[in-house]
């Protein structure tokens, strides 16, 4: 009989149960505490409020905008990596990883400087005559998307690089010899082959963006409210733990649904074989 590996998994299993599954269960349990015993009261109150509904949509929009911008930036970088030599590849990987190696606080404060009225963006625009007077991108959606884009770029570049480094150049050569131009190669060969990596990257970017409390709070400011700030308000200001739990569960579920959807797409028979 084959020896079971169970004893070796046990420590990890206990750790996950103690520090992940249990708190999660407590959180979910908390969310059902109503004023008069267990009920769906918190969910009804949260989803019934038009303001909260807008916050949910805002958060999803922020996630989608970040996904779009990281994808548009990430694909060329990944393709550049694919065509580069050894040293250039290392440089690209290093530059890609820098945002992940810097502390969230340092990163966020750097963006405050960059996006501010005396920051390089504003000054460049004024110098080029594209703007009449200095402006700030702080507390704007554009500024927030810019910052999120830089922070989450590695999350989309790394899966793409992983896929491309396993993809032989012969595929593009075969398309070239068949008579395909560069755009046709990109659309009919490269993008479909990168799709599994993109799906993985999109899940990571969405999860990261929708939960990045510090960046949202500092750069997004008070004008745009996102779900994590809502949770913070319930916990820190209103001390309504059951309500905070309910909102957290809603955020978790929406990200979870996206994850399941992406996974189902990536199981498509055309996407399974390669990458």
């Amino acid at each position, binding site marked *: 009989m084959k020896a079971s590996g169970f004893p070796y998994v046990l420590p990890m299993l206990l750790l996950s149960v103690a520090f992940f599954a249990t708190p999660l269960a407590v959180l979910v349990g908390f969310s059902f505490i109503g004023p008069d015993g267990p009920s769906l009261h918190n969910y009804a109150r949260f989803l019934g409020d038009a303001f909260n509904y807008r916050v949910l949509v805002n958060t999803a929009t922020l996630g989608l905008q970040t996904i779009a911008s990281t994808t548009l930036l990430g694909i060329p970088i990944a393709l550049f990596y694919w065509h580069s030599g050894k040293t250039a590849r290392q440089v690209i990987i290093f530059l890609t990883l820098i945002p992940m190696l810097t502390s969230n606080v340092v990163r966020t404060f750097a963006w405050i400087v960059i996006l501010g009225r005396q920051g390089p963006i504003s000054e460049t625009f004024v110098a080029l005559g594209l703007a009449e007077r200095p402006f700030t991108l702080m507390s704007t959606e554009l500024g927030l998307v810019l910052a999120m884009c830089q922070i989450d770029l590695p999350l989309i570049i790394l899966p793409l690089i992983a896929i491309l480094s396993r993809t032989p150049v012969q595929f593009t050569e075969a398309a070239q010899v068949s008579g395909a131009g560069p755009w046709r190669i990109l659309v*009919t060969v490269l993008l479909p082959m990168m799709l599994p990596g993109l799906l993985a990257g999109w899940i990571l970017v969405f999860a990261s963006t929708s939960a990045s409390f510090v960046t949202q709070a500092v750069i997004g400011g008070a004008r745009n409210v996102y779900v994590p700030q809502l949770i913070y308000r319930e916990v820190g200001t209103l001390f309504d733990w059951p309500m905070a739990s309910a909102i957290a569960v809603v955020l978790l579920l929406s990200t979870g649904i996206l994850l399941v959807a992406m996974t189902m797409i990536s199981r498509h028979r055309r996407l399974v074989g390669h990458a």
Partner: protein
Amino acid sequence: MTDTDVNIIDRPHLCLVPPSAKRFDDTAQPKGIFMAEASKAGEGKQLSVRGLTHSYVGQNAISDITFEVEAGEIVALLGPSGCGKSTVLRAIAGLIQPKSGVMQLGGQDLANVSARSRGIGMVFQNYALFPHLTVAENIAYPLACQHVPRAERRERVEEMLSLVQLKSYGNRLPRELSGGQQQRVAVARAIAGRPSLLLLDEPFGALDRALRFDLQVELLHLQKTLGITTLIVTHDQEEAQSLAGRLVLMNKGNVEQIDTPMAVYDRPKTLFVNTFIGQANVLHGTVERLDAEATTIALPNGNTVVLPRRLNFTVGSKVTITFRPEDVRLSTAASGFALPARLTVSVPLGPTLVHDLLLEDGTGLRASQVRGPSTFIPEPGAKLFAEIDTTRCHAFPSEPETSRQ
């Protein structure tokens, strides 16, 4: 079965039947569809390569490669791995820009024609079938690039699928096919756009031996019926010999010889060709005497070999003489110029018996003979005498490396 038996009895000298036209009829008959396709196929064009030179980091350098492929001909670029044959192929396909040299396809200079507009079909070593496209979509790919209307595209894909005998496989994905089937899809995709030149880069390399031969015969059929000019790159001499009408032998970025498979085997121009194609015994020696009709060569072990013709060497020059294993006769009794040798091992290989021998000075020697029911198999270690058929020996100037040793 009985049909072929009768055929063989009818024509006892099967291998000697000369007119090739008759043979072509025989092969085309059972595959009636092929003849119908032939009229629709694009005409093969003549390819000429002159002075092709390229060197680049990461690519095997080639220098001054010159050869021609006539319209409708199959030519094989044959050589050991790293000899630059793939570089030549990639330059012709337009995937790399050679440093210098002229390439012409059907009289048109390819220098300023991009890879996508050269009208060339190519089968890649690992087939490079698009994994996310079905077999039919893969075959339709070059047609879509040529903006062939949808209805015609579908028709052409069907035609290609039946041509490579994969009719019911159109909706499968490449990974759902066996290696041989993938190879056939790659060929179908390469010829779907009716190219005037077909390039194949080690097309059978990933297949097992038994399957390889079947697919080679199939490719030959296809090529003959479509009449596409074909250039195939391979390191497998058997593959090259069974497919190509002429071989271009390459070594270290240079062309060593261009000839028919038989001529390359029988009359190798260089020592490399001699040892690369088939097996060859190599003996080093010095020219000792030059007569009008004979050359005496002294071997380091004191024996001499007399070739029955005058060689173009001066007395005292170092030469390398080569001969095929089948040109060595073994006997138990000493005679004339026979070299004494000790048998290491005898191996039966199908219809032949291969003997490995050691000469007195430790040089290895290989002899082969056709095996019959009464063939005497000597014991390993037996002292024998190897008589060389000197009319079939080749002599080459010794390479600097070997003479320095």
